Structure formats: C-alpha cells, structure tokens
C-alpha cells in the first residue's frame, strides 16, 4: 500500500546536476529500509526551478527539497520517511524572511505562477500514458471527436484568444481556419520543436515532461482542419525529448489514441517525428518544411503561405509546441475559462525560461500582463550577489534588451514590441552591472551570422558586416561614425531580408543602441568597457597592499608577463605583453588583482625594478 510518492525531477537541468544518482540512491536506501513497497518513486518532467536541482517533491506532504545529492539520501529517508519530519538541511529558504519553506505551496517561486501548459510537467511520469490519462488526458479529444464539429473546435480556439507561442503571436484559430478552408488534400500539421534560441528551454520541458499534450493537441487540430498527418520537427540536440516523444507516440498508437478511427469515429490521424540537423534557421517555418522534404534548410518567400502551399506543395499548418500543448486544456475547460487569464489583447499564460544573472533560473509560467518586475524579482528572486539589475533580453537573438526603467511593463506582444524587443518564444536572459551591452549585441550578432542560411545578401553579408563593426568596437578600434553605420546596416538587413532570421537579427543592436548608447560611446571615445567585459579594453594591475607575494599569478600567466619586484614580496604585471586573459584574476586568493577598464584615463603604475619570479627563467623586459 503506497503511502507516499516521491517525485524526482527528471528535467534536463536536474539530469545534468545528477538526479540519476539521487534516484538510484533513493531506490537503494528505501529497499534497504524496507520501505520500497510503501514509498513510490516517480521520475517526472521539469518542475521549474532548474538552478536548485536536483529537486524532490514528496506527496501528499508537498515537501520540496532542493540541491539533493546521493550522499544526502540516507539522512533524508531517515528524517522524512521514518521519523516523519522534514529534512531541514535541504529545504529552500525564503529570500526575504530567511524562513524555511516547508511546502511547495508556500514556495513563492511556485505560488506566483499559473501552470496551465506546464500543469503536468513535474507531476506525472512522462513515460506513462496512463498518468496522463488519469489527469484528464485525451478526454478533450474524445469529446471533440464524438460531440463537436470541426467548425465548433475552430470557433472555440478563436474564442479562447490563443495566439501562436512560437513568437509571431498570430491568432491560432484564424490560422486553423485558413487551413480548414484549403480545398486541396492531403493536409499536414507540423509541430515546430526546433527551439533554437540560445537560452530557451520551454518547449524542451513540455516535450520531456508532458509529450502527450502535444499529441492530443495535434489530433484535435487535425480534426478541426481536415489534416490527416502530423510531423513533429524536433532538434537533434534534444535526445531525451526525442526518446520520450517516441515512447509517447508508440503508447498512443498502442492505446488507439493515434492512428485509424480514433474513438470509434472515422477520423484517423498519424504523427511521426522528423529530426533536425543543427540549423537554427530550420526553426523558420518554410525552411523547416524544406528540411522535412530532405532539402537544404533555406526559407522560401511567402506568399504562397503554408496553408496554401506547404509541405510537398500541400496545405500545411505549423504551430509551436506550447501552442499545441495548450489546445487540449482549452477544449477541456472551455475558451471562457482560458480567456480569463491574460490581457485584453493576449489571452492565457506563457512559459518563460529565466536565465542569466538571476537567483531562480528555470521555467516559469505566468499569465500575460504580468510585469517584468514581477517575473524577475517576484518569481525569479532578483539578482544574486547584491548586484544591480541592468537589462533583460527577451526573445532570443531576434529580440532586444529592456532596461530598468521599463521593468513595470506588462509582458505581452504589443508592449514588448513598442520597447523595440519581441516576446519571441519566451527566452528571458537577465543581465546585471557586469554585463556589457555592446558585448551582448556582438554575441547575438555572432549567433545570427553563424546561423544565417546564406540565401539572401542582406542577411548573409549584412550580418557579417555588422558583426565586424561590433567586434571592432569591442576591441577598442571603433569610431563614432560606426554607430551611424550600424544603424544604416540594421535598417537594410531588417527591411530587405527574406525571412525572420534576417529581419530580426539587428534587434539586439538597435535596442542596445537605443537604451545604452553611452556604453557604445565609452567603448569608442574612451576605449573603456564600463562593465569590464571586453577583453581588449581591460587592464589588470596588482594591488600592492593586498599582494602577499605568493607568486601564484606569475606561475599561471600564459605570456610570462608578471614579475617579482626586486627586494620585496610583491609582484608586478608588465602591461605591454598582457593579453587580458584574466588567469591571474581568477587564481589570486587575496583580492590583489585589480581588473579595470579605465580606457584612455588609464594610468600605468610606475615600473619598479623587477626580477624573474622564483623558479622561472623569464627575461625581464627593458
């Protein structure tokens, strides 16, 4: 008789921090203590707070444990399952009160979210279809197929206000209607699971933690639009998601929930996976279709749109993982239930992947209209280490940075667009005072330049040209005219590019210029990086007062440019040969290395008489 379920988070974050070891240790310990018939271990999808992994959730108590290691397991089992009290060492602490949080319900990170898409993630065993069914899975499909007409389904989706979660935010019901109207068959549905934005893992969590939601959504979509086959285009870099999805597909076929004559009706639907090959551009819908056809992943001009001529020339509808996963709950609970969440223009909830300089990295799901401040400081826990918030980058490489003055902006498509950024698929990278905005722009442009398919010159050459300019500015070789050149290039690339990659690639540059122009000017005029990130603009100096003469910096210097001061137990960095690698800064245990970016105001400390460090035969420069 099972008296307790221990949910072990098996999401990607916890996997990499070692949840398998925890799981094995748990199994071992419970067996050893004779509890294996009473306590059930369930491996679930991502629970959300990835930075705190591996995490455990014990039901029915609701106790949440963080940073669990295999070594903690015996003590935890002893405390929680035998003595019947929480193992306080692994309980999370409230940031404000520093009190221990005893149940998940009291944990702000969870309490402030509204989990609709992620409702099953972190709750069920993703590899067991019966757990999905037990939580009302496939009930919506059953109702739809037996009691609703296709037009009713489309009407319901339209009423719900569901907008595409892939980034464009196009009304899903309208998109489905276009496909339903297409007179040619066969018709196809595609789930875009390419998720190429760096730092985005929203879709990954759903695919790994609740894959049936996507399958059910696609079946409902097939019924509504007249499509007969679905393809899930999933990136090759998600092997666990691929594995779980295949298990889900196989189980669905076995249970008669995919394939011929579902629920005894004459509606049949097939789904298969197609695996990507490492190209960000294949997340663009026309390039994605080319890739499924076995061709080079290059976008084609639209019109014609996929609903008119898509996969193999047939009418096709493409939606994001999150969009598909929302469909069953809308049909189950009704559009009017769904559109109580969100704002007037954007209904429902959105999953965001919080990353960067933030205390609680991980996945959060909140209704549209929640402000950036609520997400970053309320749920995210704010900036760690006492640092100051600088900006949040939304929408991945297609998006832009948003500074502190706009933190109270409610998150929705139009409001973010007004600020120069985009919602994108939900990536949110938080930056603090130690992030250089010029470097951020350079990083995203480097990504776009690398991932550009190369079909059209504005993107292929334009992103390279704009990257060259940014690299020069970061290296201290920029000039003021370069800022005008950046803006000119950005306009050309935005306007003339063929697809969304090119059309949005300049956004990081444009927003950083808009809100942080002073950082660009510092790089150019003063050769100074205010955030102390751009290597070529850094200087490393030894702080005499703190230096104890241990010589560890000199021994780690790759260019042998640190010497001992003659007659003293102090060291000195000869700046001429310093490559600004920061090795000395990293190894010094006495805070004796000053990392600065003073630019043109930099004063080289006077050079004392030097001798080679002990044990090294380096030549002291003249």
């Amino acid at each position, binding site marked *: 008789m099972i008296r307790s379920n221990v949910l072990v988070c098996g999401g990607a974050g916890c996997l990499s921090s070692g949840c398998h070891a925890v799981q094995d240790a748990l199994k071992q310990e419970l067996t050893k203590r004779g509890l294996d018939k009473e306590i059930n271990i369930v491996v679930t999808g991502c629970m959300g707070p990835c930075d705190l992994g591996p995490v455990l959730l014990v039901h029915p108590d609701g106790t949440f444990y963080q940073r669990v290691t295999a070594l903690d397991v015996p003590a935890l089992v002893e405390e929680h399952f035998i003595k019947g009290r929480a193992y306080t060492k692994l309980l999370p602490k409230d940031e404000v009160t520093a009190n221990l949080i005893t149940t998940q319900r009291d944990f702000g990170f969870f309490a402030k979210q509204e989990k609709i898409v992620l409702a099953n993630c972190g709750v069920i065993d993703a590899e067991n279809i019966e757990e999905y069914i037990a939580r009302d899975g496939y009930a919506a499909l059953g109702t739809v197929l037996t009691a609703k007409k296709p037009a009713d389904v489309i009407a319901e989706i339209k009423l719900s206000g569901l907008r595409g979660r892939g980034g464009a935010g196009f009304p899903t019901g309208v998109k489905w209607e276009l496909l339903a109207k297409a007179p040619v068959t066969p018709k196809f549905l595609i789930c875009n699971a390419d998720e190429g934005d760096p730092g985005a893992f929203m879709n990954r969590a759903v695919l790994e933690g609740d894959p049936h939601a996507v399958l059910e959504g696609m079946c409902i979509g097939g019924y509504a639009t007249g499509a007969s086959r679905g393809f899930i285009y999933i990136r090759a870099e998600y092997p666990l998601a691929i594995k779980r999805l295949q298990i889900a597909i196989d189980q669905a076929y076995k249970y008669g929930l995919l394939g011929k004559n579902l629920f005894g009706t004459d509606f049949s639907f097939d789904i298969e996976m197609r695996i990507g090959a490492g190209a960000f551009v294949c997340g663009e819908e026309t390039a994605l279709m080319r890739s499924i056809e076995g061709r080079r992943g290059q976008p084609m001009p639209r019109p014609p749109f996929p609903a008119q001529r898509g996969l193999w020339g047939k009418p096709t509808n493409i939606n994001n993982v999150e969009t598909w996963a929302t469909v069953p709950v809308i049909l189950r609970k009704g559009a009017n239930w769904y559109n109580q969440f969100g704002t007037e223009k954007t209904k429902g909830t959105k999953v965001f992947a919080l990353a960067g300089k933030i205390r609680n990295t991980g996945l959060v799901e909140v209704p549209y209209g929640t402000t950036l401040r609520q997400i970053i400081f309320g749920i995210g826990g704010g900036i760690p280490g006492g640092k100051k918030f600088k900006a949040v980058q939304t929408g991945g490489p297609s998006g832009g940075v948003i500074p502190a003055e706009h933190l109270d902006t409610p998150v929705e498509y139009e409001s973010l667009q007004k600020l120069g950024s985009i919602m994108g698929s939900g990536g949110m990278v938080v930056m603090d005072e130690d992030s250089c905005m010029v470097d951020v722009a350079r990083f995203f442009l480097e990504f776009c330049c690398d991932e550009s398919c190369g079909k059209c*010159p504005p993107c292929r*050459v334009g992103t390279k040209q704009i990257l060259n300019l940014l690299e020069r500015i970061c290296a201290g070789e920029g000039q003021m005219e370069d800022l005008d050149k950046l803006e000119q290039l950005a306009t050309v690339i935005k*306007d003339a590019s063929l697809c969304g990659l090119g059309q949005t690639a300049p956004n990081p540059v444009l927003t950083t210029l808009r809100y942080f122009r002073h950082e660009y000017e510092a790089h150019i005029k003063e050769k100074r990086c205010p955030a102390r990130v751009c290597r070529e603009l850094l200087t490393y100096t030894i702080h005499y007062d703190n230096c104890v003469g241990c010589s560890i910096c000199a021994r780690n210097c790759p260019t042998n440019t640190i010497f001992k001061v003659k007659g003293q137990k102090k060291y000195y960095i000869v700046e001429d040969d310093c490559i600004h690698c920061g090795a000395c800064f990293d190894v010094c245990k006495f805070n004796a290395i000053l990392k600065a970016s003073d630019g043109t105001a930099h004063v080289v400390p006077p050079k004392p008489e030097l001798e080679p460090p002990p044990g090294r035969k380096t030549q002291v420069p003249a």
Partner: protein
Amino acid sequence: MSTPKQITVTIDGKTCTGTAGQTILEIASAHGIVIPTLCYLKGLSSWGGCRICIVEIKGSPKVVPSCATPAMDGAEIITNSDRLIQLRKCTLELLFSERNHLCPMCPYNKGDCGLQHQGLAHGITGIRYQYLYPAMPIDLTAKYFGLDQNRCILCTRCVRTCDEIEGVHTLDVANRGIRNQIVVDLNATFGASDTCTSCGACVANCPTGALFDKAAAFRGPLASCQTVLTTCTECPVGCGLKVFTKENRIVNVFGDPDSPVNKGHLCVKGRYETWADARERITQPLVRGADGQLHPATWPAAIQRIKDTLAQSPDWETGLLVSPRLTNEAVQTVRKLADKFDRVAAFVAPYEAALCGQPEYAAPDSLQRLDEADAIIVLGARPSEDHGVVAARIRRAVRQRGAKLLIFHARKSGLDRYANICANVVSLERSFWKQVAETLADAQRPVLVYGPQAMSPIGVTVLERLLKSFEDKKEGTGPAVIPLPRSANSLGFGAAGLELLEEIGPWLDTKPMSFLCIVASDEPDGGARLLEERYVRPLLSEVDCLVVQAAYRSALTDMAQVVLPAVTWAEKFGTITNFEGRVLPVRPVLAPVGEMRDDQTILESVFA
C-alpha cells in the same frame, strides 16, 4: 480545362491585367515595366533570394520579391519607391563587398555581367561597406570552362540550371551563411566529377564571370559580335545554335532559345567540342608528289591530277564513300553523280542502316512525347553519350515527374544510375520480364526510344518482346516509338536511297577497288575511325588512288594521294533532317578560310 481567372493589378499606377497564378514580375514584364533582377531567369524555378526584384504592396510594411510572389487581384504595387531603390543599392553594395569582384580582370567586363549591369544601372561608383577580401578558390579542372568563386554572387542560377534543365544536379550550395559556396558533387572539382556532363548550361546561365568559358574568355563583349542562328550537326537531334562571331572567329556558342528542338539547351558536343577543341585544319588541296609526301597544290592542279588518273585507267573499279554528316543538298549531289562511280555508299554506325530507312516512324512531336512520358524505355542507345539533350530530357522526366526508366543495353552508360531497371541484354531471364511488366503496369504515356543496337540480333529479340508486352495493355496505351539513330543526317540519307554500310571492309573487298573517294566532310576525327575496322587499313592502302575530302587532318588523310579541303558545319550552308523528321537549316557562321569549299561544290567540280 477551365480558363484561368483574369486578375487586375496596378503597377506604378498603371493598370495591368494578367491571369491568376502569374507572378508580379511576369505581369510587369508583359506590360513593359522593367524590374531589376539578378537571380531570376525565365525557364528556371523562382528563387527569391537576391532581393533585387523587391517591390512594395500597398497595405503591407514588408517588401516582397516580384519574381516569386503571385500577384493578387486588386493589389497596388510600387516597383521604384525611394525605399526600394535604396534597399537595392545597399544590397548590391553588400554583394560587391562580399567577394573579390575585380572587373578589369574579368572576361565579362563591359556588358556581359549582370552584377556590373545592375551596379551601373543603380549609379554605384563606390561602396559604403568594408571589402571582406575572402580567399576564394578557382577551379579550372573542367576542360572547357572554369569556376572562379571570387566572382560568384550565390544567385544559384547554376544550381537550378543543372538540376532543372540538365537534370544531373551536379552543383549545389555547401556550408551556411557567409561561408556559402557553390560546390561540385560533394565538394569535388569539375575534373573529378562523375556526374557533370560538361553541357555548359550553368556557364551560359551564370550572370557574372564566376562560371566562364575558357575558349570565349577575353574575345570581346557579346554586343560587339555578329550572331547567326544555325543547327548543330553532331548528332541527329539537331539542336538550334546561336553562334557569336567576331573577325571571322567564333567567340561563343549558345543554344537557340527559340528552337523547338532544344529550347536553348545544348550538350558538350554542340556547345564546345565542335569549335573549342584544337584540331589541325586542312586549308588547301594536298597532292602526293613523287617523293611520297603530300604537298600543297592549287585546286586546278589537284582536280587535274584526279581527272588524269581516272582518264588513264578507264576500266578501274571506282567507289565513292560518304559520311552521314553531309547536308541534304550534298546528298542530292551525291545521288546525281552516283552513276559516275561503280559503287556508291554511305558509312553509318553498326546496325544503324535499318534506322535510317524508317523516316515514316519519325514524327515531329517525338521530343514532346518524351517531355510528357511517364515511362521511358531505352533500348540499344546511349543518349547520355550520343544525344546529350535527349538524355537531359529523360533525366528530367525521371527526377521531376517520377517517370519510370528502363534501360536495356550491352554497355554501361551515364543514364544507368537514374533507371528503375537497367539490364544487360545479353543475359535476360524469364522472371525479369515479369519485373518489367510490373514496372510498366501503371504507365499511361510510355515511350520506347531505341538506337542502332536495337537492330542487332539480340536487340531485335528484346524489341519484339517489349512491343509484345504492350499488346496486352488496353487500347491507346501503347508506347510512342522513337528511333534514335547515331549519325547526324541519318534520316536525310535514309530518304536518299543510298546504300548504307555498317562495315566498309566487305564492301571494299568484294572487288578490289582502284579509285576511292572518301567524303569525310567535317567528321571530327577526319574519318580516321574507318581505319579502326578490321582489315580496312590494308585494304585502303591497296587502293591505287585514294582521294579524301575532309576538314581535319587525320591518319586517313595521311594515307590519301589527294586531299581536298572541306568546310565544317561553321561554314556550311544547307539543311539536315533530324530524328523527328524536321528539316533544319545549317547556316554558315564563318567565311571559309584558305581554299576550303563545301562538299557538293567539290564533288561537282571534280566529278561532274
């Protein structure tokens, strides 16, 4: 079939009508509105990648490529706003900055380069971006053309041409983004490619000097040349040629886009081999002197020598052997003079005689049948080696329309890899015919192409068996039968009623011949292949007086007592009959040099 819907759009304020499905560019062109393009080429699929043909549509903030965007009824389109002109200019400048476009070093300078043309048309005298100066390779390993990556703008016209016209898909794009590069096969060189047919269509369609013809390079801009439309005489397909000449030299050869036979496409023979290969040309009559060497002579002297020889020995056995490359007019002359000789014949390919005698099978729509076929059987012919343009059509049928291809032959050919069934006729088993029947089961428009080898004993057996397998099918689905001979004017000869020889040894041997005139015309090997047949060389050396009428020097001409200089296709005037039965014009593109004369004039002046 319902008539397509008519639509009306406004382009730059002008009302234009078109049909639903047409692109904005097509409607604009039909109304004389010029939109600049680079990657677009009529006859190829639309790419929409160069972003030069972009236009604005009222109501949308985005620009669209007019070559790839279907026009919507009622749309208001602008082609030349300040914004569009600025974007086009910047896109062109980005292209100029990307690679090393050094016009002064390029053979397409001054008028033959699409990129230069657009740059000048947009008033570009300098660029605002930094030159990237990448190190790009040059591939000169192909015999007749080269690929200079420095000049490439990645428009992919070559890729689409090779895929959609020639059908081999040798070229494609490798890597991604700024590292994009046109590659041959899987990054091989042209010289090492086993798929490239050297048809040169990619070179013809490349807008810049990236792909360039070696023989044509630096001979001058095309605008400074004369052009003549003529017909290729290398094989019985008879492709239309558009030849550019300057100062009585060929500068370049292109396919005639208006020819219903090839529609602008050519194979390596017609595009290159006929003029770009170096061969020794005979420009004057040569007479063998007492010292046993051939010496240049005047026409009167040479003709007199022949007449004297014949007059001296009136009871000599005389023969006239002609090449099947002769024009119809030359063939008429041969018929007229036939009774001056004891024996007259034409030499054709092995087993070809039967094909030459079937002009009634040739139909003007043979190539069209091929373009509509959903099953193609090739028996005893090797189109990929002998009729490049036909092979291209077969490959297109297979790759674009999914047509079935069955090949029966005794030798390997380049077309084999595209076939569903490829069988060696020498070893066919009974179960094999069942497989054939299955493959052809659903064919609605089958075509049977057969070459000379189909007339061999084994070939005939297979041919009969094939035709029989169609008898069982229902009425009207029998195959279109297309005979495909090898020799250029085979059908012209077939109609003339001359004796056709597949072997000349027995013909020479029946009765020792003392005088033989071989009209080799412009055979590329000067007729030397006749010598490859067994016993022919010793038999010919026993001929007392051998006269060879040829354009090129060869081992055959070296054996003759008198050599008479003939013109080539480039100087000929007349007609040939292609395998469809079309009579096609051969027009001179060059004036004869030296003492060369056309075949019928030579024959008349010597033997009439």
